């Protein structure tokens, strides 16, 4: 499979990249790790005339703590997320989820920004970003703006980003130390997208759930923020009845398509099962 022809650009600063992208209108795409875009180009589902490679834009890489927030550069690879001690200590759910993405080769190259930016409902990180209340930093010709992950996804491959904007960083206020977390992903094999997956972040107070957030992957046109399912376990000790309420609430908002991973009915049911498993594991991990 051979992609269509394009001109290649390799800017060395963010301002240069933004200027290039604006100058080509909608005919240009930025490329990060390329492990979503290149397969689409090989299938001619994407045929940009200009490709703007962000690999040499150093300011888009790395994980840092700024005030109370963790800032992850959009070009940070999944491999780098897994190796980050800051993330292991403050946002361990990212490591757990990143290890379930694709395979080692893809994780060396694939980036967090690429995973969340283009609105692919099969990608794992968008649901986690919703769950964590992450904020996306976008830079375009009109300057910088911030969009909450929970407001970013509008449909399959449709997002709140304008064509001239580049996702530069993801900002996350980490949950308090001792929080419970889990990402449960049902997949047929290594490298597969989720049949259904659920991410959970929760905190406890005196042994009962004080706060909870849930995100669902690949069971709708976009990742889903499952606030009713999360609300169903707040105040509980994660007993069977609470888990059943949360599963039912997750299933109620799931609208998966039938595909090689199973029927729509099965995948909806698995959204509930993954939600219950992630809640149980997050609860068992939490202190407080």
């Amino acid at each position, binding site marked *: 499979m051979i992609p269509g022809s394009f001109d290649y650009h390799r800017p060395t600063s963010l301002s240069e990249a933004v200027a290039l992208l604006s100058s080509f209108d909608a005919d240009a795409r930025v490329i990060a790790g*390329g*492990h979503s875009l290149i397969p689409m180009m090989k299938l001619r589902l994407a045929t940009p005339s200009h490709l703007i490679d962000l690999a040499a834009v150093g300011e888009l890489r790395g994980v840092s703590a700024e005030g109370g927030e963790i800032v992850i550069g959009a070009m940070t690879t999944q491999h780098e997320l897994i190796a980050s001690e800051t993330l292991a200590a403050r946002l361990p759910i990212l490591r757990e989820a990143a290890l379930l993405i694709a395979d*080692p*080769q*893809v994780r060396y190259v694939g980036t967090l920004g690429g995973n969340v930016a283009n609105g692919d409902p099969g990608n794992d990180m968008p649901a986690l970003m919703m769950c964590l209340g992450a904020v996306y930093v976008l830079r375009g010709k009109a300057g910088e703006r911030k969009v909450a992950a929970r407001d970013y996804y509008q449909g399959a491959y449709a997002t709140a980003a304008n064509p001239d904007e580049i996702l530069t960083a993801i900002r996350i206020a980490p949950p308090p130390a001792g929080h419970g977390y889990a990402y449960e992903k049902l997949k047929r094999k290594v490298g597969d997208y989720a049949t259904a997956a659920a991410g959970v972040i929760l905190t406890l107070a005196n042994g009962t759930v004080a706060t909870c957030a849930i995100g669902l992957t690949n069971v709708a046109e976009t990742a889903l923020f499952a606030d009713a399912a999360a609300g169903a376990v707040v105040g509980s000790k994660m007993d069977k009845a609470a888990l059943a309420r949360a599963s039912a609430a997750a299933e109620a908002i799931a609208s998966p398509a039938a595909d090689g991973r199973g029927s729509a009915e099965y995948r909806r049911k698995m959204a509930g099962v993954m939600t219950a498993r992630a809640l149980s594991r997050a609860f068992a991990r939490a202190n407080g």
Partner: protein
Amino acid sequence: MSKINVTLQLNGKSVSAEVEPRTLLIHYLRENLNVTGPHIGCDTSHCGACTVDIDGKSVKSCTIFAVQAAGAEVLTIEGMAGADGKLHALQEGFREMHGLQCGYCTPGMIIRAYRLLKENPTPSDAEIRMGISGNLCRCTGYQNIVKAIQYAAAKINGAEYKEAAE
């Protein structure tokens, strides 16, 4: 679209070719440089037969443009044996432990295993299996590939290879 020059370090030697920007690295290697060790299996970034090492990372060369690797240090199976023809420990391991049958996946397996052992010189069998989870083999059932990589790990560490009880 005009061609551009892509120069990189391949197995320690500088190589270059004029290619279109849309040329994938695997095609640059195989078609422009006649370096046919890396194989095209699935062409969809699943099978790992095209794996090469780029600046210390295992990468599927069917899913990167050659121009993205310009200036990089690239290692393929052709660069594994010594100048005198002496096999690398991994090549020896695959031969000794029968880690291949048809051989199609082997160049990608060995290049991936090379980076795995650089990052984790004493992997468990489970760590090897996760480490090569991006490389598909349709012949061996992986058992002997795991043994081959353990053989190489032992040899590189100067230890004696002992086959784990099954």
